[in-house]
């Protein structure tokens, strides 16, 4: 490849910049939800996540205490206190009493509200409102203020979604669906792949063609008949039609064509001499498979396992059709989809939940990338 490289400094520099731009576009979106998931929920809506290391400012509304809290001082009626009460202190830069002009007065100045009433709000949130006449009414004065807060990072969001939003439970449900649905197809596919690669029997070529055909059959073709079948079985035996067993088998079925295809092309490529010398030594097909083929096929079995794991973990459609939406069955993807509907504006919930759903695939992906890429290449370049 070296020969095809433009050698001038400018073109080398251009390549670095271009790749950097691509990398930025491909990573920034994910970075956005990671950063947001760690921010304070009030700050998420107050400033963009790319500003999260700067102080965020926002305009808020509050109410002063009612008339009953007033005291008399120097012949005036006075209301005193702190806007923030006992909650975290922020810095106030300006305040106002009308929604139309929420930052009419700078902090620490005395605002004249008419009829001799004055109001002063200081930067730390303390306020003094004074009037020559007694305050009346149960509701205090409405005030508005612009405040800024130092950047605040927290893991509260994770605590909230894991334990109060049901994401923790869904995480367990996803694991419950994924692990059996990954493990079960492997052995079934491996035996079939060996037979299709190394055993001669009538109909073999047809079977291979059918499996390659099934590789591309859209999942949609299976949904309705299987839904009817499951409902029928459920009614007949008086059991629920949406069960973990049902989805394990469904994922096994949907994963098998790719599993057999991937394993067959690998097993068919194993050296013939090994098989034949074993056969001469009197080994049966079963022994050859268990003692020679399975151990040699470890890399491709790992590839398939990663594929199937990612595919099942990330699946939404099969889960929505074959599992219920009650807390004991809803998987992460379906839960996230539900949260998008019910918590549409709560970005602290959404970003945190999204990050929890993608963290497991990312770990699997990064630690086993070698096998994943190998499977990808074997699965699509050869013939597929």
């Amino acid at each position: 490849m070296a020969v095809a490289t433009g050698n001038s400094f400018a073109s080398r520099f251009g390549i670095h910049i271009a790749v950097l731009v691509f990398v930025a576009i491909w990573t920034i979106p994910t970075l956005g939800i990671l950063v947001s998931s760690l921010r304070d929920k009030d700050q998420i809506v107050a400033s963009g996540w790319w500003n999260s290391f700067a102080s965020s400012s926002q305009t808020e509304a509050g109410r002063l205490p009612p008339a009953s809290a007033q005291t008399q001082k120097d012949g005036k009626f006075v209301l005193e206190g702190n806007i923030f009460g006992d909650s975290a202190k922020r810095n106030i830069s300006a305040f106002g009493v009308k929604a139309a002009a929420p930052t009419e007065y700078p902090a620490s100045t005395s605002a004249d509200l008419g009829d001799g009433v004055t109001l002063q709000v200081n930067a730390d949130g303390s306020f003094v409102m004074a009037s020559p006449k007694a305050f009346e009414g149960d509701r205090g004065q409405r005030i508005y203020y612009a405040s800024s807060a130092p950047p605040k990072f927290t893991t509260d969001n994770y605590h909230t979604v894991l334990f109060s939003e049901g994401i923790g439970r869904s995480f367990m449900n996803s694991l419950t669906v994924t692990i059996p649905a990954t493990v079960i197809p492997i052995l079934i596919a491996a035996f079939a792949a060996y037979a299709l690669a190394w055993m001669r029997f009538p109909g073999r070529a047809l079977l291979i063609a059918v499996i390659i055909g099934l590789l591309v059959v859209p999942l949609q073709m299976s949904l309705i008949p299987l839904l009817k079948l499951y409902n029928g079985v459920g009614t007949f035996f008086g059991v629920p039609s949406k069960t973990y067993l049902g989805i394990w088998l469904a994922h096994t079925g949907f994963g098998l064509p790719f599993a057999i295809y991937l394993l067959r092309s690998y097993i068919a490529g194993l050296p013939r001499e090994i098989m034949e010398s074993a056969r001469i030594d009197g080994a049966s097909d079963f022994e050859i498979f268990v003692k020679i083929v399975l151990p040699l096929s470890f890399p491709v079995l790992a590839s398939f396992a990663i594929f199937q794991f990612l595919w099942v973990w990330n699946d939404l459609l099969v889960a929505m059709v074959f599992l219920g939406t009650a807390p004991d069955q809803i998987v992460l993807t379906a839960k996230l989809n539900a949260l998008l509907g019910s918590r549409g504006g709560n970005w602290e919930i959404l970003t945190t939940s999204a990050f929890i759903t993608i963290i497991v695939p990312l770990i699997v992906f990064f630690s086993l990338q070698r096998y994943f890429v190998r499977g990808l290449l074997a699965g699509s370049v050869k013939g597929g």
Partner: protein
Amino acid sequence: MAAQIFSAIFVIIIGVGGCVAYFWGANKLLDMTFPSRGVSGTAAVNNLRRQGLVRPWLFVGPALIILTIYLIYPVIATLWLSFLDRGGTSFVGLANYEWALRDEDLRRSILNNLLWLAVVPASCTFLGLIIAVLTDKIWWGTIAKSLIFLPLAISFVGASVIWKFIYEYRGEGQVQIGLLNAIIQHFGGQPQVWISLPFWNNFFLMIILIWIQTGFAMVILSSALRGIPEETLEAAVIDGANPFQIFWKIMVPQIWGTIAVVWTTITILVLKVFDIVLTMTNGQWNSQVLANLMFDWMFRGGGDFGRGATIAIIIMIAVIPIMVWNIRQANKETGGH
């Protein structure tokens, strides 16, 4: 929850144990029924032949049964259901297909799917190819590829949340917390509600799939590029070809087969695109696609299986040419083996 974990572990043990027991037991049974050792020469030969006839079916049996129940039977049943009414009980002939020809939503979905087909496979393949070529020339190319590859591990739903956050809209003049509107507002533009802009919203949804799938195209094409013989490139350089000519006239023609594979793989994925549309718009604002419309009909008002099946058949028909091409290609390659 403890019961659930326990039952999952139990199933793994039963599933794997059951498989092992079946394969081992069935083989043992076969060996005992037709013994090849400890019998006379001709009997042993005959029994070995009988074993050879049965054993392959013991090996492919379980896979065949599951494939039949979960894929082969449903394909036939879906075809049949598309001629039945909503409950799947009485025959209605071509009524569902007539409905399909007239239905406004369905026409909209087909048009949108065609738009996706025109944009997504081409964009992924093109971007993947460009990135593969560029990253091959720099020392940190592997890291760059890894990062661009990463979204492939993210679920469509997760990716939808990620991009919904980027497209987030706040009224004009307010602080934009969505990156796209923030950039636009920064340069004095008007913030937009991207996912409800008719027609253009389709492209904002497509970006999500392109973002996910470019890494796939990149990895496959990158490995194909590595397979190009050095001599052809050297010869081109000696002949005075510039980098663009080398790319288009030497490299691309040599990996044409791989480009076709990447293109068709993404095409099939696009035909089935569901999660992104469901989570982003659920088909509102003229962004409906076939797979989401089908899901809608499966459950809308108790479900209309006839119409749902008809939509599935439409998706299937679009896939058939690719399927035939794949089978032919595989037959050519495996040939005798």
